[in-house]
């Protein structure tokens, strides 16, 4: 087990830079999830830690060793691939034992480790089967078994659950979490699935076009997204963004459809009179009595999901569209008018140009 640290890591393929300087210190035993849409560079970042891609500049260290120039095998890591990459012609036992055999470990020790891993992953009865005789979930477990037996310093997961069906994905997610709690090996996990990220990660690195847009715990990322990208990417349905102007003193918003929206205490005096992006999550709207509402939503379309109800509608003179999520079932007709309110602590204000979150000025 060891800490992993990235110092200003960049990656160029030919002349195109795909990772623009990512820094992060991953503590010993921590489970870090790299999250982002496809093409944001998350897999490339992981592969640089693994040693499968060269680091163009910057420093990757595992433990207290800089590993930029080391072969993957010398880095003491193990990796689970998206398509599992099991050796098709070997039995489950040999798939797990192969890496140990190469390292010249004794037969008895290999057997001990493989059997132990098989017991943890409930693979004991499949040890003599070939990968193609196994189901997706079992192959996935073999791929993890191959990592466990090596007892490496770091586990790397490259979208390991994306080839499984939805039900199995939930189950394997729990198993991975449990495994991590038992073994406490530093883990880096790449995914584009925010639910996986929120449930598995101690911390998230949210990637956007080769930049680390935000690094923080799942709750931090949800509650205080650093950019509009992070705000829109985390949470489903995604956050509503309204471009509007702040009042001159930065304490009020200026929008035709909003009667009175109290900004968090102190407001944003330095951005007074300027255009900003206001973000409100669908789940943070509340039903209220008409006189208390800050806005009136005209319902366009309703989706009843059972546990909650998604309402799509518009408000104001310019018919700004809005998505809201109400708990429990609501039967609403088209063109119903809903008075809504939002607590000021649930408002997110971002700079219009940079997309960065505007911090509250302390009163």
């Amino acid at each position, binding site marked *: 087990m060891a800490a992993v640290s990235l110092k200003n890591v960049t990656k160029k393929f030919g002349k195109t830079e795909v990772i623009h300087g990512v820094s992060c210190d991953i503590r010993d035993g921590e489970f870090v999830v790299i999250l982002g849409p496809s093409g944001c560079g998350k897999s490339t970042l992981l592969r640089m830690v693994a*040693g*499968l891609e060269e680091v163009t500049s910057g420093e990757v260290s595992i433990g207290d060793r800089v590993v930029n120039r080391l072969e993957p095998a010398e880095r003491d890591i193990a990796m689970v*691939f*998206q398509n599992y990459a099991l050796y*098709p012609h070997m039995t489950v036992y040999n798939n797990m034992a192969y890496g140990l055999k*190469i390292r010249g470990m004794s037969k008895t020790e290999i057997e001990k480790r493989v059997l132990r891993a098989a017991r943890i992953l409930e693979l004991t009865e499949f040890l003599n089967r070939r990968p193609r005789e196994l189901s997706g979930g079992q192959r996935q477990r073999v791929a993890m078994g191959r990592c466990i037996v090596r007892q490496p310093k770091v586990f790397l997961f490259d979208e390991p659950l994306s080839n499984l069906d939805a039900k199995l994905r939930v189950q394997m997610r729990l198993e991975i979490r449990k495994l991590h709690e038992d073994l406490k090996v530093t883990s880096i996990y790449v995914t584009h699935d925010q639910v996986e990220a929120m449930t598995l990660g101690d911390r998230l690195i949210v990637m956007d076009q080769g930049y680390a847009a935000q690094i923080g715990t799942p709750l931090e990322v949800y509650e205080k997204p650093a950019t509009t990208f992070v705000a829109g990417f985390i949470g489903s349905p995604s956050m509503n963004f309204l471009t509007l102007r702040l009042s001159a003193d930065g304490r009020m918003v200026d929008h035709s459809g909003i009667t009175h929206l109290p900004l968090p205490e102190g407001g944003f005096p330095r951005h007074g009179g300027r255009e900003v992006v206001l973000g409100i999550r669908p789940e943070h709207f509340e039903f209220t009595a008409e006189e208390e509402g800050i806005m009136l939503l005209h319902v366009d379309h309703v989706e009843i999901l059972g546990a909650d109800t998604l309402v799509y509608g518009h408000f104001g003179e310019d018919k700004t569209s809005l998505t809201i999520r109400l708990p429990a079932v609501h039967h609403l007709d088209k063109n119903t008018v809903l008075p809504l309110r939002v607590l000021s602590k649930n408002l997110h204000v971002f700079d219009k140009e940079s997309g960065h979150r505007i911090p509250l000025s302390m009163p």
Partner: protein
Amino acid sequence: MVEHRPWLTFLTHATLLLGMVIIVFPIYVTFVASTHTLEEIATRFPLLPGSHLVENYLRALSLGPRDVGSTVGQMMLNSLIMALGITFGKIAISLLAAFAIVYFRFRFRLFFFWLIFITLMLPVEVRILPTYKVAADLKILNSYTGLILPLIASATATFLFRQFFMTVPDELCEALRIDGGGPIRFFFDILLPMSRTSIAALFVILFIYGWNQYLWPLLITTHENYYTVLIGIKRMLDVGEGQAEWHIIMASTMLAMIPPVLVVLFMQKQFIRGMTETEK
């Protein structure tokens, strides 16, 4: 097609049977001829097998026909050595060449690939004179080396393995690198076992190709000890004014057919699997 019309079934079977008869008939004639004495065939050709089967075949195998100077047994051994040499040589070289082309990034990689690929268009016959000159200069005429070496590289097989290797997912190679293996291990522990079915299929094709080589052995063997069985049969026919020993020639022909047939029979299953599926 899931049509069940009786006359259609009859027609398909009749066509198949007819095709089979056309193919089998010459072989049957050969077989019949190989079981009679020369006089019997020369006077009136019999339709049923005769009683001299063992005698004819034994003579072919142990004594050999007149004027050839080598027994069919010896010639078949030569053919076998040549066919196996070519087969194993071609498979080994093609595997290694395809491995290099697919997995290593070296200068002019594409150039070399195309160079190999272009030679596909040049059959042995086209380059036979320069090849003969080279073989003569190397002093490998009349030797097993001479029979095998010039035919040992195969663009077809290289191309086949290249296509197969390109379908092997890159992650396997990466998984092996993380497990601590190098290129040699990857080749022997992963690629080779995975190519098993393709190798079996190629073995069948290449063995028959090697066994049926005619022009090249005819050119470079002047010594009876290195005659292959096909050359032997040709020599048996060159009798000038005399009467060719047809019963022995036919027996030798039957014998020459056996090894390729055996290879096909025994490797049928692997052959079809190698042609249709890959283990992934």
